[in-house]
């Protein structure tokens, strides 16, 4: 076949092309994937509930820690007394006077 005729033959080789048909089970596969994706998605209201629970937990922890710190802090009177006591002890090193 002449070169130019051959080129025409190649370029026109798709004339009368039939449509290919995809595999039959493809729709089932697609539906399964869609359903699997649906179950994996966590709805917005669940996210909100989880966020609210986390917020309550953080607030409760904060309140507890704050209370603990406040209760364990010594009174200002106690500090003065202990300081006085310390100075008395330090001023006299002669134990057998």
């Amino acid at each position, binding site marked *: 076949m002449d070169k130019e005729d051959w080129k025409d033959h190649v370029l026109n080789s798709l004339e009368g092309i039939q449509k290919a048909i*995809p595999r039959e089970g493809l729709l089932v596969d*697609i539906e399964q994937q869609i359903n699997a994706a649906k179950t994996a998605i966590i709805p917005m209201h669940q996210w909100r509930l989880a966020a609210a629970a986390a917020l309550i937990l953080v607030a409760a922890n904060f309140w507890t820690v704050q209370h603990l710190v406040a209760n364990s802090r010594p009174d200002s009177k106690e500090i003065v007394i202990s300081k006085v006591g310390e100075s008395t002890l330090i001023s006299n090193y002669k134990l057998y006077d």
Partner: protein
Amino acid sequence: MIPLANFQRQNLNKKESHEENFRLLLAVGQGDATAFRLLYAQFQIPVYNTALGYLQNEQDAEEIVQEVFININNNAAKFKGNAAVNTWIYRITVNKCLDVLRKRKRNSWLIFFSEPTTAYAPTTFNHPGVLLENKEAAQVLFKIIQTLPDNQKTAFILSYIEGLPRQEVADIMAVSLKAVEALLQRGKASLRKKLDKHYPNRRKK
């Protein structure tokens, strides 16, 4: 020439089918499984054949069909009707195919280091729908279609493999009718030039 009455009837049918597709898509957006199956029945063959034209591999084309219909299901509710439903579906398909081709190109160097499952090795493609007497010539054509630039490739595949009217190709590609004609002309000229290398009797001369 198409008689005016036939032309009007065709246009009316086209409009009705666009409206029907739009209704189906709205129903898909509301989670209607039957509408999804109807839409799949209507578009599975165009999507599969377009993907086959680009990717020249049946498994890859099936993967594109899956991705396209999952995308349709996820985005049906967001469809605003700016384009016809079939234009929208073709656009999704074309974009997904071009993404796969770009990925193949990026990973082509991996072929030397990895297994054939991770890197794409181009092979001769036999389209199942090509007439028996054209099989050999079509193999050559499919091989050189891959070398065309993306826009020429898209115009060629949609026009000659999908057999879409030029105006529909223009709508899908979001270009003018003239631009599609120019792309096809340039594409054909480029293919003709590239065919020189593949002429079977060139050494005999």
